[in-house]
């Protein structure tokens, strides 16, 4: 089994004057889920694909199940759609909490140049226990919803082709609703803390992946952000709509995929602009740029303030953190809305059918961005071919651009200080906490940095 996990490698190329000319971020782990799934029964796919990731298995289950829905040719009952949405949103809450509190808050609170041995959640807990407690509680809130609905916190089995495997029980609904006020309070408190402190990270804001790019996300008709359904929209850095109302089944008309020899991670690009000019970003920053609004009052008020502070289309990847916190607020409120509906306990949560089509595409918004599962099956439902386009792949070009920008700002000649290494970690962490988790430990991310001169000769290798 594979997922994005393991060691990261960065190469930094110096020019003849010793300045950074180029930099690459290499993912050195082979994933291979597209091959593993060949020959499997299509009904197994949601559970199998959930094993891609231990942080966002629900996203894979939802996207996979949607691809299976198409192959079965079914329409999922409305309550089944909403319950899948609750599960997906709960996962976004817990994943965003992990990203912000566990992985990024040590940098933000203790400083990017602080002692790496102490730059972790344990120290954060000692110095700012209130913030750490809020993070733990928000993560538990999301995980408990997943556990209640899906039976377990990681790799739940509830989402199936055609809907979900069983209806929601009243006791489950009531216990989740009882936890909403506390979760809301913690989310808002964290957002207020962040807004008060964001000015202290001005240098990082300016140099953590601040460049023009396209942005892609799912939106509902009318422009509200979508997380489980909706159509694809792509905008440029000034908000010009490059593509809109794109049925996810047509993703291949707009998104190209390519492989570079220095990384196992596929790079995707916006086809009309070609490679690599068609660089785009997905995930929280992109979603807030692409959507007109989120659709819940408190989150939209925060979004309005966010746009007033940062502009309508903020471009610094550092602002993924701010966007993430707003999304936590939004997700909690949508969960509350759905579970307060009188029909949420309906027993009609699944449609059943046999194989009616040989191809299906499912798209959802994972915490880190747009996630696409595309399958082809034979008459018996055996998977013949699968293509997965994962958020991290969408962001690969942008991550590389960000690493280059960070390196150019913080590396002078062949001098590499630990704080620079940490900022390289932190740039990556803005995009995708799975990478940070996969490289094991905050402050001890197994990271190797090669610095080469203009002829490609290795000047210095730094690893830890």
């Amino acid at each position: 089994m594979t997922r994005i996990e393991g060691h990261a490698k960065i190469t930094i190329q110096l020019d003849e004057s010793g300045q950074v000319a180029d930099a690459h971020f290499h993912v050195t782990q082979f994933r291979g889920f597209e091959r593993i799934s060949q020959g499997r029964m299509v009904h197994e796919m949601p559970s199998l694909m959930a094993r891609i990731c231990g942080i966002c298995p629900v996203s894979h289950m939802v996207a996979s199940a949607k691809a299976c829905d198409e192959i079965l040719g079914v329409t999922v009952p409305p309550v089944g759609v909403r319950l899948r949405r609750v599960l997906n949103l709960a996962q976004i809450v817990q994943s965003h909490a992990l990203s912000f509190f566990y992985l990024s808050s040590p940098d933000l609170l203790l400083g990017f140049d602080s002692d790496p041995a102490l730059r972790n959640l344990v120290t954060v807990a000692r110095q700012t226990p209130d913030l750490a407690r809020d993070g733990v509680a928000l993560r538990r809130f999301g995980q408990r919803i997943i556990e209640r609905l899906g039976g377990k916190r990681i790799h739940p089995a509830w989402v199936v082709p055609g809907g979900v495997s069983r209806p929601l029980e009243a006791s489950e609904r009531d216990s989740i609703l009882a936890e909403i006020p506390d979760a809301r309070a913690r989310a808002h408190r964290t957002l207020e803390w962040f807004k008060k402190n964001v000015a202290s990270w001005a240098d990082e804001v300016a140099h953590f992946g601040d460049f023009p790019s396209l942005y892609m996300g799912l939106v509902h008709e009318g422009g509200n952000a979508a997380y489980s359904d909706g159509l694809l929209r792509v905008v440029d850095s000034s908000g010009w709509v490059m593509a809109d109302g794109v049925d996810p089944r047509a993703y291949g008309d707009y998104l190209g995929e390519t492989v570079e020899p220095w990384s196992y991670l596929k790079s995707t690009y916006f086809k009309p602009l070609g490679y690599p000019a068609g660089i785009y970003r997905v995930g929280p920053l992109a979603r807030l740029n692409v959507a007109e609004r989120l659709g819940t009052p408190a989150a939209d008020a925060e979004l309005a303030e966010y746009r007033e502070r940062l502009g309508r289309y903020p471009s610094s990847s550092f602002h993924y953190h701010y966007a993430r916190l707003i999304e936590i607020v939004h997700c909690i409120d949508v969960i509350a809305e759905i579970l307060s509906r009188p029909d949420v306990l309906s027993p009609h949560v699944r449609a059943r059918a046999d194989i009616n089509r040989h191809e299906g595409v499912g798209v959802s918004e994972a915490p880190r961005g747009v996630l696409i599962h595309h399958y082809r099956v034979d008459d018996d439902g055996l998977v013949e071919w699968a293509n997965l386009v994962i958020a991290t792949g969408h962001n690969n070009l942008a991550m590389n651009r960000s690493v280059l920008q960070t390196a150019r700002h913080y590396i002078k000649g062949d001098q590499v200080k630990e704080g620079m290494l940490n900022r390289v970690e932190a740039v990556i962490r803005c995009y995708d906490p799975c990478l940070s988790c996969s490289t094991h430990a905050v402050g001890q991310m197994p990271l190797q940095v090669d610095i080469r001169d203009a002829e490609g000769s290795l000047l210095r290798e730094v690893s830890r």
Partner: protein
Amino acid sequence: MELLHRGVLVVACGNTLRGDDAVGPEVGELLAARLDGTGASVIVSDQLLPELADDASRARLVVIVDAAADRPVGSVSVRALAPRRTTDAVAGAGPADGEAARPPGPFSHGMGPEDLLALTRDLYAATPDAVLVSVGAESLEPGAELSESVRLAIPRAVEVVLQVILEGTRGVWTPHA
């Protein structure tokens, strides 16, 4: 059994796709069945995570079950746990007598039982009794099967945990062979 095990938390952790690392979850599943209705809670988890500190803060006794690469294969051993002492200069904090302070351990995939207990202490001002029950592992390489020795050790590990829970005294544990 009566609900006299209320306040007991068992955390059985391990990766079920890493050979003998699955022994924790295997033992945990059996314990969940044996402890059903007793008031004890059993959590089976891939690894120790910070949110478990919240669960631990509500317990009077935490028993962590895990595979150990540094113990004889198939052995079941018990040791008392204490929260990690940290080196950061917070007023009033510092190492206790007789124990050298250490930096907090690596986080995320590397979080150890002492780190979890440190979080429990620092976030929730709770210091439950805590015990680690380890099963000596032969292999932690990728794979879905337990080695024979570890598989045979599971019933003994279950009984050891149940004995630990019954004894329930602070810091006095007899290592089991």
